[in-house]
C-alpha cells in the first residue's frame, strides 16, 4: 500500500509541473498502453520477413526516442507523444521477446526457460513504483525517464551483438514489402486504436452514452470487423491468421489470457464501477498476447 502511495506522487508531480489535469495524467498511462497493445501483432508479423533482430533493434530505437521525448517534455502534448512512441517500442520488445523465445526454445521447454523473462517482469514491476516514488520524493519525475538511458544503451549492445538469429527470410526488399500485409496492419491499427480511444473516453472524459464515446466504439468495431473479413476472405498471408482459432483449446487459452489481463491489472472494486473500463482495456491488451500462441501452433504442426 505504501509503495502505491509513493508512486502515486510521481503522477501528481508530473501533473503539476506540466500544467495538466487528471485527464492528462490518465492519458500519460493510457497512451502508452494503447500504442503498446495495438502495435504488438503488427511488429511480430513484420518481423517474420524483416527479421526478429532487426525489429528488436527498431523497437529499441522507438523506445529510446520516446523516452528522450518524455524526459524533455515541457507540456502534456509532448509527453503524450513521447509515451505513445515509447509504447510502440515497449510493445515490440515485449512481443519479440516472446517470439524469439518460441524460435529458439522447443515447445515443451518454453515454460521452464521463459521464466527468466517472467522473472524480469516481476522484478521490474515491483521495483518500478518504488524507484518512481523515491525519485519524486528526492529529485524530479524526469529521473523516471533518465533511468532508462543506461538500459537503452545496454539494450542496443545486447540486441546488436548477442541476439543474433539467422532466421531472416531470404527475400529481396521488394518481396518482403509485398509479402507483408500492410492493408491488414492499417485496418487493425486503425480499428483497435479508435475502439480503445472510445473505451478510454467512456465514463472518464465523456459519458458512456455520448456521441464522443459511442462514435469511436462503433467505428472501431466496424474497423475490426473489416479487418477480420480481410483476413478471412482476401488475404491468406495474413497479419493475424484466423486459423489461430482452430480448436477449442486454442480459444480457451485466448480466453484465459483475456481473463488474466482483466484480473491481474485491476483488482475488482465494487466502489469504483468506472474502473471496469480499465479492466476491459487490459483484457484487450492481453488478448493480443494470444497472438504469440502462433509460435506454439507452428511447432505443433511440425
Amino acid at each position: 500500500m505504501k509503495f502505491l502511495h509513493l508512486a502515486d506522487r510521481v503522477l501528481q508531480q508530473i501533473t503539476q509541473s506540466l500544467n495538466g489535469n487528471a485527464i492528462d495524467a490518465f492519458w500519460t498511462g493510457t497512451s502508452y498502453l494503447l500504442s503498446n497493445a495495438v502495435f504488438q501483432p503488427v511488429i511480430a508479423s513484420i518481423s517474420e520477413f524483416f527479421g526478429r533482430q532487426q525489429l528488436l533493434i527498431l523497437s529499441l530505437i522507438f523506445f529510446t526516442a520516446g523516452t528522450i521525448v518524455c524526459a524533455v517534455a515541457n507540456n502534456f502534448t509532448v509527453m503524450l507523444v513521447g509515451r505513445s512512441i515509447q509504447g510502440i517500442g515497449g510493445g515490440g520488445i515485449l512481443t519479440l521477446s516472446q517470439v524469439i523465445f518460441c524460435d529458439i526454445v522447443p515447445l515443451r521447454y518454453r515454460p521452464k526457460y521463459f521464466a527468466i523473462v517472467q522473472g524480469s517482469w516481476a522484478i521490474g514491476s515491483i521495483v518500478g513504483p518504488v524507484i518512481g516514488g523515491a525519485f519524486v520524493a528526492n529529485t524530479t519525475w524526469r529521473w523516471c525517464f533518465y533511468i532508462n538511458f543506461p538500459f537503452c544503451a545496454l539494450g542496443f549492445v545486447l540486441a546488436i551483438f548477442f541476439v543474433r538469429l539467422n532466421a531472416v527470410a531470404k527475400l529481396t526488399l521488394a518481396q518482403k514489402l509485398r509479402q507483408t500485409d500492410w492493408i491488414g496492419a492499417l485496418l487493425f491499427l486503425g480499428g483497435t486504436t479508435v475502439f480503445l480511444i472510445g473505451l478510454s473516453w467512456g465514463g472518464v472524459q465523456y459519458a458512456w452514452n455520448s456521441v464522443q464515446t459511442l462514435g469511436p466504439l462503433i467505428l472501431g468495431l466496424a474497423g475490426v470487423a473489416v479487418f477480420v473479413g480481410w483476413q478471412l476472405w482476401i488475404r491468406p498471408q495474413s497479419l493475424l491468421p484466423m486459423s489461430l482459432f482452430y480448436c477449442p483449446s486454442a480459444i480457451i487459452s485466448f480466453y484465459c489470457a483475456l481473463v488474466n489481463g482483466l484480473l491481474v491489472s485491476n483488482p475488482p472494486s465494487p466502489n469504483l464501477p468506472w474502473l471496469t473500463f480499465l479492466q476491459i482495456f487490459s483484457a484487450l491488451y492481453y488478448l493480443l498476447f494470444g497472438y504469440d500462441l502462433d509460435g506454439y501452433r507452428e511447432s505443433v504442426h511440425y
Partner: protein
Amino acid sequence: MDIEKASTTEEWKPQKTEWIIMISLSIISLMVALDATILVTVLPVSLLVTDEVSPSC
C-alpha cells in the same frame, strides 16, 4: 523455424548462444517492465486521489 524442427528430439538443453539470447532478452524486458510500472500501475490510485474526475457512470 529451422532450429525448432531440429530440436524436437530427446532432451533439449540451451547452448551458450541460446543462454546469451535469453539473458539479453530478460535484461531488455526488465527495462520495459520498470518503465511501464514507474508510471502506469499507479494510474487508478492517482485518479482516485486527485479526485478531479467525476465519472459519469
